[in-house]
């Protein structure tokens, strides 16, 4: 395998992780029948809260846990306003994003007297998985070993997520809510309850995705998510709203992004074009996939 591909794939695996995490939560809301564009805001909330709490508690696990709570709180607000005040989910989600981007800066100013980058030198590096035995395996080892724990956590969560959706009553009810709300009602179940939980789940996973961004850096930068929540939404659709699909889709984008990072040095094409690669690449993948599916079930 050529020497360029390995590092590109290695960083692709790292890049895809926050997207994968966020898209998992997004999958829950999506399947419950709501287009949740608040992933961005939820990620940002988690990113900020988890590093700040890690700083104050001095314990990364506790910090992340509290960060997750903060993000879930925002998700709960979003859920209440959307489901119980019956507001348009798109607008409320936009509001959630606006809210998160504002609140994080206001708080960081109130807490650290600084609206800008807040560096936390007391925060150690994220633990990494280095298993020499596995790392030795030629290609596999080079690509999949030596990432921070979030990468592997995301895979475990993905499996869990698949199990919940396809192997538990909750999963079936959640999906039923998305497909045929009235069917749920007529069986005496409350769709809004399942949607609310879906919001909480998206708060949970998005927070983890955000936490990876800041803890990996040991610093909070305003707006650090910079659109990753939106890409996570794309990942859900490209992944055909299936857990395994998310993995594939996130990898597609992660690879495209990693590749564009490499290409900036390798080609002399205007940087803006290269920055566009991930979007174009994903778009193409999206189209190719839908061509494939439409061919598959067509009357001859």
């Amino acid at each position, binding site marked *: 395998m050529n020497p360029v591909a390995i590092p590109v794939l290695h960083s692709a695996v790292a890049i895809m992780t926050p997207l994968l995490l966020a898209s998992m939560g997004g999958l829950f809301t999506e399947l419950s029948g709501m287009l949740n564009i608040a992933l961005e805001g939820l990620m940002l909330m988690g990113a900020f809260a988890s590093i700040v709490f890690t700083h104050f508690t001095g314990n990364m696990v506790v910090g992340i846990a509290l960060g997750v709570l903060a993000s879930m709180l925002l998700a709960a607000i979003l859920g209440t306003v959307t489901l119980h005040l019956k507001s348009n989910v798109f607008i409320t989600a936009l509001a959630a994003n606006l809210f998160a981007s504002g609140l994080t800066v206001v708080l960081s100013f109130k807490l650290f007297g600084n609206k800008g980058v807040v560096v936390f030198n007391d925060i150690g590096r994220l633990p990494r998985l280095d298993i020499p035995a596995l790392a030795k395996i030629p290609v596999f080892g080079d690509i999949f070993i030596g990432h921070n724990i979030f990468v592997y956590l995301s895979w475990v969560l993905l499996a869990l997520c698949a199990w919940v959706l396809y192997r538990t009553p909750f999963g079936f009810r959640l999906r039923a809510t998305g497909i045929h709300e009235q069917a749920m009602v007529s069986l005496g179940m409350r769709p809004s309850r399942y949607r609310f939980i879906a919001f909480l789940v998206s708060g949970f996973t998005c927070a983890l995705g955000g936490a990876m961004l800041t803890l990996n850096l040991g610093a909070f930068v305003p707006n650090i998510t910079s659109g990753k929540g939106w890409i996570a939404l794309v990942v859900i659709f490209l992944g055909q709203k299936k857990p395994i699909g998310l993995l594939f889709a996130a990898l597609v984008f992660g690879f495209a992004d990693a590749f564009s990072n490499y290409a900036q040095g390798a080609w002399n094409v205007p940087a803006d074009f290269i920055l*566009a690669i991930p979007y174009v690449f994903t778009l193409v993948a999206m189209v190719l996939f839908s061509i494939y599916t439409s061919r598959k079930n067509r009357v001859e």
Partner: protein
Amino acid sequence: MVDRMEKRRVTIVATLRNSIGAVVIVGIALAALVVLSLLLSATPLKTLRYFFLGPLQNTYYFGNMLNMAIPLIFGGLGVSLAMRSGSFNLGGEGQLYSGAFVATISALALARWGSAGVVVALFLGACTGGLLAGLSGVLRMKWNTSELITSFLVSNAVVLVVSYLIAGPFMDPATNLIATRMIPESFRFTRILEPSNLSSALFAAVIAVLVVHLYLYKTKSGYELRLFGLNPRFAAYGGIRTKWYQVWPMFLSGAFYGLAGGMAIFGTYYACMKEFSTGMGWNGLAVALIARHRPAAVIPAALFFAYIESGARNAMLHSDVTFEIASIVQSVVFFLVTSAVLQKIGSVQRRSI
């Protein structure tokens, strides 16, 4: 005849009820603002004054508020059209930006044409936005690729390309702003309400609302578009060209976004600056949703949006409110603005016994 009058009465009652609901919402939202500024501002009263009265305190701010509403109206119309047909256009940012860019360079190229050039340039800008959105429509029509996602992706890519073109080949060497050259005087809309930035584009916006309303509710095409949006299978059954209505409304919505961009340049900025339109696309979408995709309601929705926006801006200018606090305040408003429950508070349960 009686039925007609009865119908009118019912509709009037209904509209009244809705407006009461709207008032309730605005009331709550404003109450929230008061609380927030008490929390976040050292000079809450000053802040509130500028927030509420700022946009109205003089022709300059008032004009700028109206001016801010213009692209929102165009964008809102575009989204409404798409939504009515059951399509979702998330590509507003790129469509508006590229529309503005193409309109600008056309204006520069057609400098000699004068007012005819204005029309052509705006048309080309609109077409650009339209084609970008139309592409997503075609993809949906042929392979039913989610237009929601493709329009978003296309837009993101296009924003980067346009930015490159502005900062590169089309950059005005004479300025340190990252922008194209200025469009010729003859292409600029006349300013009304000097010294504010408000221009005659406002009339264009109002006319556009009228046109879209008539199109949707009075023309055959609009009727077909709405039916397709309400039930595609029924539309197909009724012999409506369903393929066409997966593409055409997307094209229209993109075109309106493109027009929004062109209008912003010809009416306000006169040159296409890098990323000048950031956020306009999303705001147009928000306006459409607040207006529940009713063209007529787009104007009040856009004005409301612009009022909140410039209120926040005013509080920043003249009080101690920062960028971020302003956005928190806005977010609270948007949390509530579409609430159906709050709408209901206004509605009087009608008992006919």
